[in-house]
């Protein structure tokens, strides 16, 4: 993929995070442990895919080469995806899915809250719209972390294992690279690193509420923003992109 401008790349990252997590949650549709949970996860997935459509739309518009949100979603291969590694991690059991959602939604809420003050009016408008929804996601995830963590021995063990699996992908959420720094100077991007203390505080409160210990620090795994993904993303894309790969340009 040709090198994108910093703004297009930034919008692409925001969109890819939402798209991949939305697709992951969609895998639960019809398989969740209870009907209410099925509805919850599908609704969160819808919100995320809605965000992705908007952010990828900005990326395509900024790139100005005729690629719209659909083309960006369905006609890029794994190396061109810029989502963080956390969102592409497999669903695992329900607790592992909730762990991923919990860690990401609290980050996303803080991120969008800050992005509402972006000097790019489009990004600010999407963030203002989406943050209201993400508050719901974060709360839903925290509620489940508490219910599972402070539940039976079995649910507690699974919740702890889910958090342990996901924890090594947390640091990447807050990493600032040259693109972030350049856009931060222009007031477009937000300072992700500065969100860490607020995120830590929120997560610690929720974990205490759930009677769970904070997982020990792990060596962080990085690379998603530059297209270096885990093996899981390729499998996700093969399912998500199948139709457009088999029948390029098909519409309905």
């Amino acid at each position, binding site marked *: 993929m040709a090198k994108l401008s910093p703004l297009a790349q930034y919008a692409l990252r925001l969109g890819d995070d939402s798209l991949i997590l*939305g697709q992951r949650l969609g895998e639960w549709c019809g398989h969740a442990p209870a009907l*209410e949970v099925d*509805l*919850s996860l*599908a*609704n*969160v*997935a*819808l*919100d*995320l*895919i*809605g*965000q992705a*459509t*908007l952010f990828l739309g900005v990326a395509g518009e900024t790139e100005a080469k005729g690629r719209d949100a659909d083309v960006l979603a369905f006609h890029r291969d794994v190396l061109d995806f810029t989502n963080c590694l956390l969102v592409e991690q497999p669903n695992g059991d329900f607790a592992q899915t909730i762990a991923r959602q919990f860690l990401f939604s609290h980050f996303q809420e803080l991120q969008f809250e800050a992005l509402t003050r972006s000097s790019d*009016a489009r990004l*600010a*408008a*999407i963030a*203002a*719209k*989406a943050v*209201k*929804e993400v*508050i*719901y996601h974060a*709360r*839903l995830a925290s*509620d489940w972390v508490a219910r599972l963590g402070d539940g039976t021995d079995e649910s507690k063990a699974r919740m702890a294992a889910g958090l342990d699996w996901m924890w090594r992908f947390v640091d990447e959420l807050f990493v600032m690279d040259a693109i972030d720094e350049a856009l931060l100077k222009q007031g477009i991007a937000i300072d992700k690193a500065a969100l860490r203390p607020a995120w830590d505080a929120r997560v610690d409160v929720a974990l205490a509420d759930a009677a769970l210990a904070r997982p020990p620090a792990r060596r962080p795994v990085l690379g998603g923003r530059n297209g270096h993904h885990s093996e899981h993303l390729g499998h996700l894309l093969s399912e998500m992109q199948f139709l457009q790969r088999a029948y390029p340009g098909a519409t309905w």
Partner: protein
Amino acid sequence: MSVSLSDTRAHNGSGAISCDGEECARVTQRQLRAILANVPDPEIPAVSVLDLGIVREIGEHAITITPTYTGCPATLAIEQSIRRALDEAGFAHVTIATTLSPPWSSDWISDEGREKLRVYGIAPPPKGADASALKNDAPATCPLCGSDNTEELSRFGSTPCKALWRCKACAEPFDRFKCH
């Protein structure tokens, strides 16, 4: 100035009417408003797109709408229904634009819309509630029996804009329009 049937008769099928200037614009806007008042929400047909507050601006040549939720699948269906209604009424030249800002709020649902929701069996969101009401912790009023003795079953319901509740007085489950 009141808008009567003659306004509808006056327009010639392309939406153009025999008047000029500001008055003409006002007449067109009222006609458009009347058309939109009859376009139902695809998922909650008891209320119109006007009742829901998703129509942000009615101009002489353009209508601006806003989505309720970013991922709401009804958004596209709503735009298509509005398009069809405008075309059928001879306003094919009126364009539809979508805006995200300011973000839609359930406070924009009209009082009439709230009452229609309640009659339809959906507890309407409290109006003017502060941000903490996003959590929807305050009990909903059962739209069926009017009791406040209710509980949340699921924060996410049959559509993105609704949560699932149950009345402990009459034991009926009901949808609650989320405060957003």
